[in-house]
């Protein structure tokens, strides 16, 4: 059990641009923090800095109140699970698990006791004599987990540990990892670019974009109140619809943008509407009509892409139910809200939009 603090952390690679800017993050005892963001935003770099594998350009990494900037990875008492597992190919599963204990001069009988315990915990007891190449992807993943767990470290670091697994195994493993982490109560930093993984596993979610933290919060907070347009578009699947236009000049069919904004709305703004907050109705029954351009059946629901009459951009509607509308049909759209408003910097505008009817025009 440990706390982990990142204080104004920066990273600049030799000869490169700065890839992390002033990262501030406080992680509590036993908390599972998931860092999510698009490829290249610096997630791995952040994790590797915490692990001690990457130098720190400026700022501090503090574990349990102690600055670990100058410590070697082995001294920091962390364990890391790599995307490609990085199991030692020539060692049996037993030796892979035992290696860190051997290096710490643990007595032989304690090593074998702990290896067996860990193997039991991860359900790999039958595989102890095998070499990594004789294991399936899922089993390798478990061994990699075991190698991290066995030392009972202060902090777990995961760098996209599930991205080499197939979809069903990924679902299984993310539940297992989550359960294990809660059971062992070890502070964890988990990096992924899969937002479902992020939502389901996190105590708190950190959304990163281009080397900066966009927002930190529980998955549902981020979903309900995204602080920036980036977070709004990144969290939630299918992604939120955005309509942008000038504040003084919004489309008439749009539910009126609220009066309750703290400041008067000016300039270009974006209005975000989640696909589940738009309903299909009969033509002329909603705020606007449109053409169905594409229907993507997902089973219990379909994603319906509608082009509102007279507009360039498409809206994605989440249509629950097994019966599907046909592409090419006319349909009415009922926009229900809540709506999310962002200024031209992409910052959320503090407001609760209400349904109303003003006239304006919409830009694609």
């Amino acid at each position, binding site marked *: 059990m440990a706390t982990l603090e990142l204080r104004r952390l920066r990273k600049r690679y030799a000869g490169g641009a700065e890839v992390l800017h002033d990262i501030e993050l406080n992680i509590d005892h036993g908390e599972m923090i998931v860092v999510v963001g698009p490829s290249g935003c610096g997630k791995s770099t952040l994790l590797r800095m915490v692990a001690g594998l990457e130098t720190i350009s400026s700022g501090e990494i503090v574990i349990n109140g102690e600055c670990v900037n100058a410590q070697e990875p082995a001294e920091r008492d962390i364990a890391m699970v790599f995307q490609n597992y990085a199991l*030692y190919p020539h060692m049996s599963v037993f030796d892979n698990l035992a*290696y860190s204990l051997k290096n710490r001069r643990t007595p032989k009988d304690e090593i074998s006791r702990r290896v067996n315990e860990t193997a039991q915990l991860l359900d790999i007891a039958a595989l102890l004599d095998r*070499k990594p190449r004789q294991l399936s992807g899922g089993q390798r993943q478990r061994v990699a987990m075991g190698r991290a767990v066995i030392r009972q470290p202060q902090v777990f670091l995961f760098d996209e540990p599930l991205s080499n697994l197939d979809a069903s195994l990924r679902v299984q493993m993310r539940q297992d990892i989550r359960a294990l982490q809660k059971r062992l109560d070890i502070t964890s930093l988990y990096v992924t670019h899969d937002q479902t993984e992020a939502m389901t596993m996190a105590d708190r979610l950190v959304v990163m974009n281009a080397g900066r933290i966009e927002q930190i919060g529980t998955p549902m907070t981020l979903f309900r109140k995204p602080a920036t347009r980036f977070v709004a578009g990144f969290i939630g699947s299918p992604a939120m619809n955005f309509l942008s236009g000038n504040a003084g000049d919004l489309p008439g069919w749009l539910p009126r943008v609220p009066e309750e904004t703290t400041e008067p709305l000016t300039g270009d703004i974006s209005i975000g509407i989640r696909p589940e907050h738009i309903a299909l109705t009969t033509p002329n029954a909603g705020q606007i009509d449109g053409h169905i351009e594409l229907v993507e059946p997902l089973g219990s629901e379909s994603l319906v892409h509608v082009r509102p009459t007279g507009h360039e951009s498409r809206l994605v509607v989440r249509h629950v139910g097994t019966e599907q509308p046909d592409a090419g049909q006319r349909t009415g759209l009922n926009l229900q809200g809540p709506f999310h408003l962002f200024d031209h910097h992409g910052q959320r505008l503090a407001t609760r939009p209400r349904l109303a009817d003003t006239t304006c025009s919409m830009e694609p």
Partner: protein
Amino acid sequence: MRYHRPGLDVAAHTLLIIGALAFMLPVILAVLASTQSPGTLFSGTLPLSFGTSGLDHYMTLLTEPVRGVGVPAWRLMLNSLLMALGIAVGKLTIAMLAAYALVFFRFPFRRCCFWLIFMTLMLPIEVRIVPTYGVVAELGLLDSYPGLVLPLLASATATFLFRQFFLTLPPELMEAARIDGAGPWRFFIDILLPLSRTNIAALFVIMFIYGWNQYLWPLVTITSADHATLVTSLKRLTIATDGTPPWHLATAMTVLALLPPVVVIILMQRWFIKGLVDTEK
């Protein structure tokens, strides 16, 4: 790859057998000649069967001082073996360590070091023999085992091959080991060394034969019989006596010179095949 075409099999085997015979024929002739009596050999025709002398010539070589050299052949073999082992083990050790540094450590002028090493490929012992002789003489190592082995130790080829192999290993392997508490030496011994088994076995064979066959450098630096090597002595044996060279002894000594490399290949072959069969990765 395996094709199911009987014709192809026959053709492939015919070619292989012809090739093998072409390589084996001189060796077979040497073995046969070494069992003939001197008289038969001097008659000018070499019978294609074992002669009457059996292993007599070998016994002579191994027990009595070799003419023109002064020590028995077992001593020459021992010297050659020490030289070859010294060169092979030394080359592998230095090459692995150099490649380890080049691949896994960040230090100033790393690329520069690599190119310097790489360029020495163009400077075999024959080219630098005069300055090398000077250095070894200065060190007082002429006519000694260290003087024999040291100048032949560095190997750009082996360094290069190890470097290429290390580059294929995922960098996470070292990072995982670091997190697991393995320092640079532990990582080298526990992880790199076992993973390099196959490469080491292959390079050991090549380097051993390279060392065993050294001719020019021992010829230049060794002056006493105590340090003479088998390959250089072979030449002495044939020019030592007036009149006709003792071909019966020369052929026997050639066969003796063949044996250690053959033994090394046979021993190491198991390692290769083991390494190749259970491919790690």
